[in-house]
C-alpha cells in the first residue's frame, strides 16, 4: 500500500509538483525573511565586529551601541594596561567622516583608526595593496563596496586620493569588511592618522581593545578593568550583543521584520498546507475506493503520512536550495545583502515549522479521509 501511496503521489506530476513547490515556497519565504532579518540585525556592530583578535572591549561607561560613541581620554589605554591579567591593550578609533573626491562628490564614511604599531583591527581580506603601507603618511584602506560606491563601474586601483577634513588621504589598499548596518564606505587608517581626518575634539579614544593573559578569562579581566578604572568593559560577545539589543529595542527593525516573518510564516503555511490538503481532497475518491476495497484506516493513515513526508522532505530541500540560490545569486547584484547567509538554526527552524505545518495539514487531510464513508464510491 505504501507503494500505491507513492505511485499516487508521483504519478500525477502536476499535482505532485504543485504540492512540492507549495512547501518549497513556504520554506523559501520563511528561511529567506528570517535570514535577512538575522543578517541585518547582526550587522549593527559591523565593521567593529571584524576586530576578532580583541576579546576585551573597553569604552565609556554609558555606551549603548557601536554607533553612538562618547570618547574617552587618551590615557585610558594606559589605565587598562595597568590592570593585572591584561596581556595587551591598544587604542581603536571609530567615527564618521566625510570623504570628498577631487571632483567635489562626497560621501559620509565610517572611519576606523587602528593601533599604529600592532595594527590590531587591520582588515583580514586584502584585495589589493599591502598592509605595511598603511603606516605611511596619509595612507588609508577602503572597503571594496565603498570603493565601488565612490567610483562606480571603475576598476579597483590603488593610489586614488580623497580628502577628509581638508586633509589628503591616499588609498593604498582595498579590502573586504563585514557589511556595515548603514551602507557607508569603510575607511581604515592608523590611529594617529584617523584622528586627523575628523574635527578635533578634546577626547578622541573610542575603544580600548585587548586580551587577557592565558589563564584569565575575558569576563574576569572585564570585571577587573571595570573595578579598577570605572570604564565599561565587555567581552567581544557582550559588545556585539549590546548593539544588537539596542537596535532590537530602540528601532523599528524587529517590528518590521517580525511582521514580514509572521507574514512569511502565514503565507508559507497557507501555501504549503493548502496545496497538500488539496492534493488529498483531489484524491478523496480514490481513497474512498481503496477503503471500499478493504484498506483499513491504519493503512490509509500510513499512506497519507507517507505522502506528506515525501512532499515535506522534497519541498523543504528544494526551499532551502532556493534560499541558498537566492543569497548566492544576489551576492553580486545586491551588495546590500552581501554577507547574509542562512544560519543553520534558521534552516533547522524552518524545517521544524514545516514539520508542524505538514503534521497539521496531514491531520486535517486524514480527518477528511478517515471519516469518509466508503459508500461515496458509488455516488457520481
Amino acid at each position: 500500500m505504501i507503494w500505491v501511496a507513492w505511485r499516487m503521489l508521483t504519478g500525477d506530476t502536476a499535482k505532485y509538483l504543485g504540492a512540492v513547490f507549495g512547501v518549497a515556497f513556504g520554506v523559501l519565504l520563511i528561511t529567506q525573511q528570517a535570514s535577512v532579518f538575522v543578517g541585518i540585525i547582526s550587522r549593527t556592530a559591523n565593521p567593529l565586529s571584524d576586530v576578532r583578535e580583541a576579546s576585551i572591549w573597553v569604552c565609556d561607561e554609558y555606551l549603548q551601541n557601536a554607533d553612538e560613541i562618547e570618547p574617552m581620554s587618551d590615557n585610558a589605554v594606559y589605565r587598562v594596561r595597568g590592570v593585572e591579567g591584561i596581556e595587551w591593550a591598544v587604542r581603536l578609533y571609530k567615527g564618521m567622516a566625510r570623504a570628498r573626491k577631487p571632483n567635489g562628490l562626497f560621501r559620509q564614511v565610517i572611519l576606523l583608526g587602528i593601533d599604529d604599531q600592532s595594527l590590531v583591527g587591520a582588515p583580514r581580506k586584502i584585495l589589493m595593496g599591502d598592509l605595511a603601507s598603511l603606516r605611511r603618511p596619509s595612507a588609508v584602506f577602503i572597503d571594496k563596496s565603498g570603493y565601488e560606491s565612490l567610483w562606480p563601474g571603475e576598476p579597483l586601483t590603488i593610489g586614488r586620493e580623497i580628502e577628509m577634513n581638508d586633509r589628503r588621504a591616499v588609498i593604498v589598499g582595498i579590502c573586504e569588511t563585514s557589511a556595515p548596518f548603514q551602507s557607508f564606505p569603510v575607511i581604515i587608517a592608523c590611529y594617529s592618522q584617523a584622528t586627523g581626518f575628523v574635527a578635533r575634539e578634546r577626547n578622541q579614544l573610542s575603544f580600548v581593545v585587548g586580551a587577557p593573559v592565558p589563564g584569565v578569562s575575558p569576563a574576569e579581566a572585564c570585571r577587573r578593568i571595570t573595578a579598577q578604572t570605572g570604564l565599561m568593559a565587555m567581552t567581544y560577545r557582550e559588545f556585539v550583543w549590546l548593539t544588537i539589543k539596542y537596535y532590537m529595542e530602540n528601532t523599528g527593525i524587529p517590528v518590521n521584520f517580525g511582521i514580514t516573518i509572521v507574514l512569511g510564516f502565514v503565507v508559507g503555511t497557507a501555501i504549503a498546507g493548502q496545496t497538500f490538503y488539496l492534493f488529498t481532497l483531489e484524491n478523496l475518491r480514490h481513497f474512498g475506493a481503496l477503503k471500499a476495497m478493504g484498506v483499513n484506516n491504519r493503512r490509509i493513515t500510513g499512506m497519507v503520512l507517507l505522502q506528506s513526508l515525501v512532499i515535506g522532505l522534497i519541498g523543504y530541500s528544494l526551499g532551502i536550495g532556493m534560499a541558498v540560490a537566492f543569497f548566492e545569486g544576489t551576492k553580486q547584484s545586491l551588495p546590500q545583502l552581501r554577507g547574509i547567509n542562512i544560519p543553520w538554526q534558521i534552516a533547522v527552524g524552518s524545517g521544524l515549522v514545516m514539520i508542524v505545518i505538514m503534521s497539521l495539514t496531514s491531520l486535517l487531510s486524514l480527518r477528511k479521509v478517515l471519516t469518509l464513508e466508503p459508500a461515496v464510491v458509488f455516488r457520481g
Partner: protein
Amino acid sequence: MVLATVSEPSAKEEVPAVAGVACHGLVKDFGSGENRLRALHGIDIDVRCGEMTLLVGPSGCGKTTLISIIAGLLTPTAGSVTLFGTPQSALRGDRLVDFRAQNVGFVFQQYNLLPSLSAVENVSIPLLVVGWRRPAALQRAAAVLREVGLGERLHSSPTKLSGGQQQRVAIARALVHEPRLLVCDEPTAALDAQSGQTVMGLLKQVAVKSDRTVIVVTHDSRVFQFGDRVLEMADGRIVQDSVTPRGSQELVRSENSAS
C-alpha cells in the same frame, strides 16, 4: 481459463443451493428528525451463489443504498445481512474491512481506477490489500487482465483506455482476489451498447463459472437478458422478483460453444 479454475474445479458442475447473501428486514434511514428520509423500507432477499442477480428500478429507488449495505459499506438502520453464513453484525471495525477485502469485489460506474497506476498495477491492488507480495500480485493481475482480453494493454495508463476497456480493467480488479461476492453499480451506464454487452458477458461468465454471487445494479434495459434473476425495486421496496427464462447454466454453455 483462469477465471473458471480459481476455486475448486470439482464444485463447478452442480450449483449448490447455498445462500450467498441473505437480507432480512433491511431498513435504511438517512438524516434525522424533520429531514429523515427512509431509503429502504424493509427488504428481504436471498441471493444464491452462482447466480447473476440484476437489481433494477428508477433512479432514487434505493438500489445503491441496498448494495452498499450488502457490501458492508453502510450500516442498516434495522434488519440484518448474512454473507456466506456470516452475519455482518458480528463483524466490526477492521474485521469488517478485512472481510470485505477478502470476500467482496467492486465494479463502479465511474471505474475508479487510479490514473497514475498502469492497468496491471491497478488490478494488483486487492491482492496487495490481502497481503500478497508485489511481484506475485502483478503476475496474477496480468493473467486476469489477459482473461478479460486486455493482455495487450497491461502497462497502459487507464487514461489511455476506452471506457469499455477501463471497465474491463475494473472487472479484473474486482475479481483478481477471487471474492465470493461481486457488487456492480451501473457498470454499463457509461458505455456504448457493444462495450456494455462485452462487460455484462464477462460478469455473467464470472458468476456462473466460478460459483460467485454477482449483484448488478442497472437500469440499462439492453442488458436485462444477462440476468438469471431480476429484482425490481421501487421506492425502497422490492416490487418484483422474476427468474429469467434462460437458466444460467444454459446461457454459459451456449456462449462457450459459440466461442
